[in-house]
């Protein structure tokens, strides 16, 4: 009976509601005026109708703030529906009319005392959403009561309200003791109250990294694990995400938590499952691998992950991005599940691309036949991106599973026979890699490849083909003709092709010197005389000189043995992977980027709790942070103890101070490691170009990312690296462009002075913007920019100007490999479209986890920028000071020992002229750029400052700065295990001091 009655009742209401859409249609002119009248009507119904109209207008974006007093007047009502509508309005407009909003306070306070718990909760919920200071003052008392309300519904709402209030006024929340009340709610009898309190506390704790607010101890863990079984699906997610932050004391505790979390893997809600996977993946690190339970757990993880793939496509996408991480961390979990990643014809493209990625990762000798059959099938599909990726995947399989190489090559040849343009090009690019992996095995196919020479129109494919021709010039009869044909349009080619062509012809010459002398001269003169590209030109000169002075050496250099290419690609760098594993299920795991790359404000870096010594317990971190503050205050000997510096460098960015004792060894390690990565150690070749084929930002072609070039690039770099070598080029005057004069020095000094005079804010050193890409060269796109380090983040600041006649959209940016692995930490965000003559300031945060390749000069950065018109390339130089990290202050003893330890030939001296600062000011100035003064000594009126700085890749640079009173010329001596950085460091010294 009751059922039937309810239904009837609902049906009737339904009938009366069918007319709500009419509110969307009023567009008359005197609308506001009419609404005003209706709002002040005596009739309740009419009032309600009017408020609905107001909300509808608000939704479609009309400004109805003028009606504020009239709407607020309707608040005093018994009708809950009307009340909610008025509240909705208030939340939207209170901020713009704070004084008027006060009118509402009384009603809120009254409602918080209402006997109906639904109304009490509504009032406290709404009040927290009104971001007006005066109202928040009144909120405190009602909130305090509601946190202790007898009704759980009110308490759970109040718990969230604390988080709201904290967002408005954090201090107030602390002063009022709400945080303690919130902590008490973790022990509440009602599971939903617990869940909301956990959610609120977790969020608040994130903004106080060291507060230890979320005091996770075994007792709280127990409470949370109990609540986990009882609360709603959303509550379970909050709790699991919070549990993941806990560090178990030992493997037994770890196991017992895992045991209590595993049942969640059967939950219908995918987010609960993924959060549980996160907890398990993290705590598993603590378990000894020989434990039976460890194996059981691994087995339990596979089925739920597979089940996620039958969810809706959007969730599949999230799941696949996460599985990609899990497979990298623990390949054993899913190694038998290849089939479920086979692409279905109707999968959305984003699911298809992700599945393909995982298929490549799981490919092994056991399943390669099936995988290849699938990939071949995919290569005939419609979507161009997908097909390309499938072709590429076939190449990856060949490289990964040696036994399959032959089959892969024949599959690729079949595909080339289809003559579908992009398939052919993609196939040629991967075949080049196969040649490198298995030299002297498949060269018989070269003839087939050469047939397709004319159809190649993409730089990457052209470059790959040219590489093949150059590499196997002795086996291709008409190699010279083939290469010559490319030479005709040399200037229209992209840089990548030009570089490759130049190298290939040199190779050809070395192999068949008699017939090709003319050709090689032609290409070298094209490269050196008619090109503006320093890379092309300089390397051209190197070849030229090499060939003319010592052909044998040239042969050794150019035809050197190439390093092997790695089997796995697109691997995420291990520390980033560890961090991402701690973020399973979240956006970070979808983007494959640390939260700091896309979330404002500094986040903590999460780490896996390894049983090894690589991780620090949270306690150690917070202890470290406490020490740090003390460490910033200088000891007696130092004279840089002024408070200004303390203010300028936020303590948290200073990083943990070096521990004495064990530190010394650590420093050595860092130096060694840093050196290796800088020099591009040949025994560990950089992997094949990473193509981060995320669907969001279509990849730009790497400027010269084709790996065969690597060995050469590095060699070239090394040769040109020492200043002596630069001098040796005197024979070719045009050879050395002002490459050594970074934009920070030379003619720009005046600009700096100007900047200083106008009163540039005293902060980290920031050179003024220079034009990087003139509009002339980039079809109307002009970019000027600079680099700066702010709060520990390197920012690339650019002004993008549209000087073309048409609108520009679709901006994207990519860097070539560079000496310090600089890479954009997020996509380039240009609020497009950029209309003609408009300019926009963009700040692009950078990280240093990109691929490393030594550049010349060291701080050179090659950038590709894309918009709807074309792709443009330019190179710019960053002041090396942006790479000085905040924890670059060495302990005195360590400094002393290191200084002695570094050989004297690694010391270089420079003069800084015309600098009129005393030593304290200089020291302060330098410290803003993370050059730290460790000690100061005064001898005969000459101040000696001993300073240290650390680069992002862990290289330490030690310096001695001599300042003599009255002498405007300073002397800097730099000591570093990687002496090639000295020149750049010196330039930064000069720039910072003269700023």
């Amino acid at each position, binding site marked *: 009976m009751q059922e039937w009655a309810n239904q009837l009742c609902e049906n009737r209401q339904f009938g009366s509601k069918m007319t709500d859409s009419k509110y969307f249609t009023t567009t008359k002119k005197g609308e506001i005026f009419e609404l005003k009248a209706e709002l002040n009507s005596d009739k309740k119904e009419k009032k309600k109708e009017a408020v609905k109209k107001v909300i509808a207008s608000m939704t479609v974006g009309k400004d109805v703030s003028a009606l504020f007093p009239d709407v607020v007047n309707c608040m005093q009502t018994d009708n809950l529906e009307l009340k909610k509508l008025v509240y909705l309005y208030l939340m939207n407009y209170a901020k713009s009319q704070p004084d008027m909003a006060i009118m509402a306070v009384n009603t809120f306070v009254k409602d918080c005392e209402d006997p109906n718990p639904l109304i009490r909760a509504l009032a406290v919920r709404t009040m927290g959403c009104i971001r007006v200071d005066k109202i928040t003052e009144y909120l405190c008392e009602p909130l305090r009561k509601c946190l202790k309300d007898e009704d759980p519904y009110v308490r759970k709402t109040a718990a969230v309200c604390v988080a709201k209030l904290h967002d408005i006024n954090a201090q107030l929340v602390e002063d009022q003791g709400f945080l303690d009340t919130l902590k008490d709610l973790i022990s509440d009898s*009602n599971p939903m109250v617990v869940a909301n309190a956990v959610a609120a506390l977790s969020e608040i704790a994130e903004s106080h990294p060291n507060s230890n607010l979320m005091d996770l101890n075994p007792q709280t863990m127990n409470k949370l694990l109990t609540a986990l079984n009882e609360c709603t699906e*959303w509550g379970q997610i909050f709790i699991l995400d919070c549990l993941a932050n806990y560090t178990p004391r030992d493997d037994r505790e770890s196991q017992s938590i895992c045991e209590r979390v595993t*049942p969640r893997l059967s939950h219908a809600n995918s987010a609960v499952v993924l959060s549980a996977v996160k907890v398990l993946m993290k705590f598993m690190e603590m378990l000894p691998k020989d434990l039976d339970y460890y194996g059981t757990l691994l087995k339990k993880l596979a089925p739920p992950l597979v089940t996620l793939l039958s969810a809706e496509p959007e969730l599949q996408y999230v799941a696949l991005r996460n599985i990609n991480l899990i497979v990298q961390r623990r390949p054993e979990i899913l190694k038998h599940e290849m089939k479920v990643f086979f692409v279905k*014809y109707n999968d959305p493209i984003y699911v298809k691309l992700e599945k393909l990625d995982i298929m490549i990762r799981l490919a092994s000798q056991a399943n390669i036949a099936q995988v290849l059959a699938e990939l071949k099938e995919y290569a005939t599909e419609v979507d161009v991106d997908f097909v390309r990726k499938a072709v590429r995947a076939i190449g990856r399989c060949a490289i990964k599973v040696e036994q399959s190489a032959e089959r892969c090559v024949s599959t690729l040849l079949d595909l080339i026979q*289809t003559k579908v343009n992009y398939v052919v090009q993609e196939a040629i690019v991967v075949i080049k890699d196969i040649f490198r992996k298995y030299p002297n095995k498949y060269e018989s196919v070269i003839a087939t490849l050469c047939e397709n020479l004319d159809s190649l129109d993409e730089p990457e494919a052209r470059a790959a083909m040219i590489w093949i021709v150059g590499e196997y010039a002795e086996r291709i009869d008409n190699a010279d003709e083939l290469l010559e044909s490319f030479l005709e349009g040399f200037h229209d080619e992209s840089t990548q092709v030009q570089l490759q062509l130049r190298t290939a012809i040199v190779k050809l010459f070395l192999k068949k010197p008699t017939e090709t002398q003319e050709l090689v001269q032609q290409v070298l003169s094209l490269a050196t005389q008619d090109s503006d590209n320093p890379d092309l030109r300089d390397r051209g000169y190197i070849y030229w000189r090499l060939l003319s002075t010592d052909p044998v050496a040239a042969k050794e250099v150019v035809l050197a043995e190439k390093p092997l290419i790695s089997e796995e690609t697109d691997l995420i760098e291990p520390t980033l992977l560890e961090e991402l594993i701690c973020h399973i299920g979240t956006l970070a795991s979808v983007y494959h980027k640390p939260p700091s790359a896309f979330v404002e404000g500094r986040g903590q870096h999460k780490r896996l709790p390894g049983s090894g010594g690589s991780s620090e317990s949270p306690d150690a971190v917070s202890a470290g942070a406490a020490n740090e503050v003390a460490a910033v205050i200088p000891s007696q000997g130092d004279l840089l103890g002024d408070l200004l510096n303390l203010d300028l460098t936020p303590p948290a960015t200073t990083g943990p101070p070096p521990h004495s004792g064990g530190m010394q060894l650590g420093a050595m390690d860092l130096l060694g490691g840093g050196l290796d990565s800088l020099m591009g150690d040949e025994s560990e070749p950089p992997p094949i170009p990473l193509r981060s084929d995320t669907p969001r930002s279509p990849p730009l072609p790497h400027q010269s990312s084709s790996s065969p070039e690597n060995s050469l690039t590095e060699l070239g770099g090394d040769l040109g690296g020492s200043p002596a070598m630069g001098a040796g080029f005197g024979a070719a005057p045009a050879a050395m462009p002002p490459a050594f004069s970074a934009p920070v020095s030379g003619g720009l000094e005046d600009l700096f002075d100007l900047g200083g005079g106008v009163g540039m804010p005293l902060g980290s050193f920031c050179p003024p913007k220079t034009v990087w890409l003139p509009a002339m060269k980039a079809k109307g796109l002009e970019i000027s920019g600079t680099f700066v380090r702010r709060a520990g983040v390197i920012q690339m600041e650019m002004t993008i100007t549209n000087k073309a006649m048409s609108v520009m959209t679709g901006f994207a940016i990519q860097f070539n490999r560079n000496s310090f692995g600089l890479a954009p930490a997020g996509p380039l965000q240009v609020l497009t479209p950029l209309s003609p003559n408009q300019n926009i300031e963009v700040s692009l945060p950078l990280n240093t986890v990109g691929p490393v390749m030594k550049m010349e000069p060291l701080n050179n950065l090659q950038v590709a920028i894309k918009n709807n018109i074309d792709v443009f390339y330019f190179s710019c130089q960053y002041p090396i000071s942006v790479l000085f990290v905040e924890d670059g202050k060495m302990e005195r003893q360590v400094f002393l020992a290191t200084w002695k330890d570094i050989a004297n030939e690694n010391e270089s001296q420079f003069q800084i002229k015309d600098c009129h600062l005393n030593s304290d000011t200089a020291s302060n100035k330098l410290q803003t750029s993370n050059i730290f003064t460790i000690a100061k000594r005064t001898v005969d009126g000459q101040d000696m400052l001993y300073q240290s700085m650390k680069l992002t890749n862990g290289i330490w640079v030690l310096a001695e700065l001599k300042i003599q009173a009255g002498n405007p010329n300073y002397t800097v001596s730099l000591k570093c295990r990687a002496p090639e950085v000295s020149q750049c460091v010196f330039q930064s010294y000069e720039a910072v001091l003269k700023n």
Partner: protein
Amino acid sequence: MIGGLFIYNHKGEVLISRVYRDDIGRNAVDAFRVNVIHARQQVRSPVTNIARTSFFHVKRSNIWLAAVTKQNVNAAMVFEFLYKMCDVMTAYFGKISEENIKNNFVLIYELLDEILDFGYPQNSETGALKTFITQQGIKGQLQTKEEQSQITSQVTGQIGWRREGIKYRRNELFLDVLESVNLLMSPQGQVLSAHVSGRVVMKSYLSGMPECKFGMNDKIVIDKQGKGGASDDAGKSGKQSIAIDDCTFHQCVRLSKFDSERSISFIPPDGEYELMRYRTTKDIILPFRVIPLVREVGRTKLEVKVVIKSNFKPSLLAQKIEVRIPTPLNTSGVQVICMKGKAKYKASENAIVWKIKRMAGMKESQISAEIELLPTNDKKKWARPPISMNFEVPFAPSGLKVRYLKVFESKLNYSDHDVIKWVRYIGRSGIYETRC
């Protein structure tokens, strides 16, 4: 957490806009419209980052739902929430369409206020929500104090999905085992992948707070009991237990109990809900086999022959059989002959669609077609999409059987015997494809 929620129509006009967090500016609404809805190329990811703001979107018919945030939120949770929101809206006013959303916008705002607080999802079980949010606004003023506290304890309580005091004169329950069988077969008849994804949907009309226990022929449970001795129905059916790869449950099921004892016990929600989902890959009964034969006769003609064979008990009848044979884009004409049912060439869908109303087990039928092609100079070969099939059969292709569903209600005086129980099995085709 979720910073805001927007609903747009297909043109990108805002129908609903609710902002929860201060960091989401007013331009966020437009940013999504410009960059996603109006984007020239097809959207390549359900998650989009525009100017440091992340947008999650799902589409229901031509309505866009977008959640927006500036934080590192739990992405899986956001999507789960968006689906849940669709469910809640559907439960309140039916299909999600522009008209229905406009007609119910006040209700939607009320719901959004309730199920998402400061961007944190709250209880979103329709059963609980309907007790205090109706289409006529909040029922607030009509309730007595007891009713109010009953509502709040239900919304926040352990058993958020069921209210107390439900009474039926006839205690009745319906169990539907709904399976979708998926297949990918090579042209040579080799199974490339096959799996069943199944759901157990329950409609319960039971009084009070009944405690239920559900049992099926799960291999792990049967094997465990088998060790104990008595297995009476051994030999009765050839396949008595099935290996379940994985299963997930409605939140009413006690997961820890399933984990430890593999028993499925719960207090069910009132009315219809999905008790569990499961997946199997072993020993699947493939109801149909498709044997394709495609022959290219010159450059302007294709001959296609497709045989389908039904593979189940002759006494059972499959229904709604449909075979879809793709044709090349340059098809100019098609002649079809089929033994059973009706076949038609649908130019707009680039396919021959062959429909058969009913077909008994262990039968076979055949279609042959001649496809005339227009000559083209397109170098690329036709991709030959797979032949797909739809059908419905009255059994569970996984072999799953319901063994029991016991109901205990200690406070009210009805026992397990008094409950009327109905069980039904339906197997449908999921993605059932044969490459040709």
